[in-house]
């Protein structure tokens, strides 16, 4: 017990709180910030220096490595945008399906719960590439609905293929988020005569959603990086275009610079997401 600095000389019982905590939290944050900033710089420098090193070894008669990379950067960039479009679409489909599946897992109906559980486990524990292959080769090339023939282009099938594992992972995020809300909340709601639906929508989910957002964003970043898998099933994405550029240039010293460029594109997009996720995670962390 000691006098408080606000002028009062009355002895005050301070709340139980370790005074060092906010400071150390701040310090941690600072350290993490610099560490990651440093990591960022290190990766950029690494990529740039691999380009530069290759440029130095280049024969003078031919266009420099850097110019060549620049020449192809817009094309590979458009491919990268295509990857992003695929990732956004897959995420949307996967999230919608995943939320349903996740809610299904906490259903009061046993069969619904069982089916949701099995579907989640099946798709969550299968290799993404294998699921992608299944979607590519088992979905029909076109479907007839009444008199209309709707063709399913390859990119559409790829979206479905990637959405399957996303769905299962989102389902687990939803289930985990809901379970992270203390049981007392359910019980209090019940005692206040809320129906199950009302409890879920008005009490549990609003608390759970903010805890689901960081892992959900994390999953999105992973999905974005995984979109290069579609190059394996013959879709023209950034990866395929990078290879195409390498073939057209037919110079092996371009191999690393070109793949570094591709890496930079993905890094520049996914790194801010990772940073934001960390920030949100800290903000929404369950305080005990």
């Amino acid at each position, binding site marked *: 017990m000691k006098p408080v600095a606000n002028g009062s000389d009355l002895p005050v019982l301070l709340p139980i709180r370790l005074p060092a905590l906010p400071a150390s939290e701040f310090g941690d944050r600072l350290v993490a910030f610099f560490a990651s900033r440093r990591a960022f710089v290190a990766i950029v420098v690494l990529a740039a220096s691999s380009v530069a090193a290759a440029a130095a070894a280049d*024969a003078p008669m031919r266009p420099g490595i850097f110019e060549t990379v620049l*020449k*192809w950067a*817009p*094309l590979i960039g*458009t491919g990268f945008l295509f990857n992003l479009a695929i990732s956004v679409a897959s995420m949307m489909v996967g999230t919608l399906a995943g939320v349903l599946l996740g809610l299904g897992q906490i259903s009061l109906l046993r069969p619904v719960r*069982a*089916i949701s559980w*099995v*579907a989640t486990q*099946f798709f969550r524990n299968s290799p993404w590439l294998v699921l992608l292959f*299944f979607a590519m*080769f*088992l*979905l*029909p*090339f*076109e*479907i*007839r609905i009444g008199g209309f023939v709707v063709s399913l282009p390859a990119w559409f099938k790829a979206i479905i293929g990637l959405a399957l594992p996303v769905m299962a992972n989102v389902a687990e995020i939803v289930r985990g988020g809901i379970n992270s809300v203390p049981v007392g909340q359910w019980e209090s709601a019940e005692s206040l005569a809320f129906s199950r639906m009302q409890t879920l929508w008005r009490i549990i989910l609003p608390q759970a959603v903010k805890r689901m957002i960081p892992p959900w964003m994390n999953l999105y970043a992973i999905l974005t990086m995984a979109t290069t898998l579609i190059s*394996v*099933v*013959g879709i*023209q994405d950034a990866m*395929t*275009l990078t*290879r*195409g*550029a*390498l*073939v*057209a240039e*037919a*110079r*092996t*010293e371009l*191999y690393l610079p070109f793949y570094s460029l591709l890496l930079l594109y993905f890094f520049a997009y996914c790194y801010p997401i990772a940073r934001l996720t960390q920030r949100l995670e800290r903000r929404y962390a369950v305080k005990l």
Partner: protein
Amino acid sequence: MKRLLKLALSTAVVALGLAGTQATPAAAQDTIAQIKQKGTIVVGVKNDYKPWGFLDPSGKIVGLEIDLVDDVAKKLGVKAELVPVTAANRMEFLQQGRIDMIVATMGDTEARRKVVGMIEPNYYAGATNVLAPKSANLKNWSDLKGRKVCAVQGAYYNRRVSELYSPEMVVFPAVPDALNALQGGNCIAFLFDDTLIVSTLSGGDPKWANYEMPLVSEDPQLWAIGVRLADLNGPFGKLVKDMSVEWHKSGRLLELERKWGIKQSPYLIEMNKKLKGS
């Protein structure tokens, strides 16, 4: 638990199987009329096979085969839409009706003839060889036995070479990866078609100065434009066949070979002589 899993798996398989049967192969009756109605001919081409079909920095696909496609499109009075294909998916695309024609360095083999209509006369002939550092000192194909040889997925000669000479195959998804592995010393030779090896070596890249094509090219393989089997003896197949004759006869193929810097192939010279004489 186990039973539940089994049940889930079997339902999944059945559901997927049902989805599979819904696939309907596009009917290929009057292909020419269809193409004209669409205003475009959709052609499967390579975009990673210089100088036959490759990308330019604007994203356009160019190359010798693309020139052939343009000839066909011009003849039909339609635009050409190019769909990049791989060795693994081109025949499937054709059967599904996603593309009307394949012009993608496709080797004309007996097995493929059961699935795809091969246009004769063939427009090119390639053969198999290896690219290797001079220090590897390869003399005969049998020298490859037990040694690491880089190759590209889906190439028809991979199987033949591994059966005959039993090298240890290291297979890559695309040519640049395989070439890089060769430069990195991950294998002693790169197995591919001799036209690409010749153009790589003659490209003037100092990185290839100590490399050579040491063996005698083997297994000459005709390349063919592919159409659906139903089209092969129909009007569309006939049109492409006539054009192929014309390409040989008029020297168009020889001219394109020069344009794209491909070493003169004896096959084209011979065909040109033969058809001109007739």
